[in-house]
C-alpha cells in the first residue's frame, strides 16, 4: 500500500492529464496534422503518416467515435474522398494532451 502511494507520488507531473486515445502515434499524428485548421483527405493523411489503409481507417474511426474529428465524404473527380477535420472537442483534447506531454518531459528533465 505504502509502495503504491510512493509510486503515485513519483509519477511525473502531467501524466494523469495524458489522453489515452492520443497516446497512439497514428492518432496523435493525425490530430496534429488536422490542428492546422484544415480539412485533409484520407489519401494525404495516409501518405503523411505512412500508415496502411486498414490501420489508419481504424484509428481515425476511434477518433471519430470520441468526437475528436469529423468526416465529410464527397466525390472528387468521380472518386470517393473522405475529408477529415478537427472538432472543437478534439482541439481541446489535443491542447490538453500536448500540455501534459510538455509537463511530463519537463518534470523528467528536473
Amino acid at each position, binding site marked *: 500500500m505504502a509502495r503504491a502511494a510512493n509510486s503515485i507520488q513519483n509519477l511525473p507531473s502531467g501524466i494523469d492529464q495524458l489522453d489515452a486515445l492520443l497516446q497512439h502515434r497514428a492518432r*496523435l499524428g493525425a490530430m496534429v496534422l488536422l490542428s492546422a485548421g484544415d480539412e485533409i483527405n484520407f489519401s494525404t493523411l495516409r*501518405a*503523411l503518416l505512412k500508415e496502411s489503409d486498414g490501420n489508419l481507417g481504424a484509428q481515425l474511426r476511434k477518433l471519430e467515435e470520441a468526437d475528436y474529428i469529423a468526416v465529410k465524404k464527397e466525390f472528387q473527380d468521380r472518386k470517393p474522398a*473522405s475529408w477529415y477535420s478537427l472538432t472543437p472537442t478534439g482541439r481541446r483534447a489535443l491542447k490538453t494532451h500536448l500540455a501534459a506531454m510538455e509537463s511530463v518531459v519537463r518534470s523528467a528533465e528536473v
Partner: protein
Amino acid sequence: MSDARQIHEDIQYVREIVARSEQSNRRPVLIYWTWALFVLITYPMMDFAPRYINFVSLPGLIICFALTIYLSRRFKQSLGIKQRRDRSGLFWFGGSILLIFCSISLSIVMHLHGQASGQLSVVFVGIFYFLGGVNYDRNFLWLGPLLCVAGLAVGFVPHYGWTALGIVFALGLIVPTLFAPRPPEALAENVPAETH
C-alpha cells in the same frame, strides 16, 4: 523514466510528420507558367507595339486571374488539403488588386504615362513578389528585388529593354519550377485512391 522517453519519441515522431507535411508543399507550377506567358507576351509589346499594350494586357490580366483561380483550386485539391482560411489566396489576390490600384492611382497623381507608368508597375510587382518570398516561396526573395532594380534600369536601356525584362521575369518564374524538389512519398496525387 520510460513514460518520459516514450513521450520524447512521440514528440520526435510528430516533428517528423510536421516536417514531412511542410516538404509536400509543392509549387502551383501551372499558375507560374500562366503568368510567365503573360509577361512574355505583354512586356515585349512595350518595345514592339506600345500602342496596343492596353488592348492586350487588360483582357490578358482578366484571363490570367480567372485561370489562376481555377488552377489554384485544382492544385489545393491535388494536395488533399482544404484550407478554410486561405491566407495565400488572400495575399496573392488582395495584393494584386492593391498593386493594380496603387500603380494606376500613383501614375495619375504623378502624371506618369507610357514607359514611366510601366516602370512604376514593375517596381511595385517587385516589392509584392519580395513579400511573397518572405511569406510563401523563397525564390521570390531574389526575383522581387531583381524586378525592382530592373524596373528602374529599363528606362536607361535604349533598345529592347522591356523584352529583356520580360524574358528575365518569365525565366524567374519558370526556372525554379523545373528544379523544385518533389518528395515522392508526400505527393497525395501519386498515392492510389483510398480503399478503406
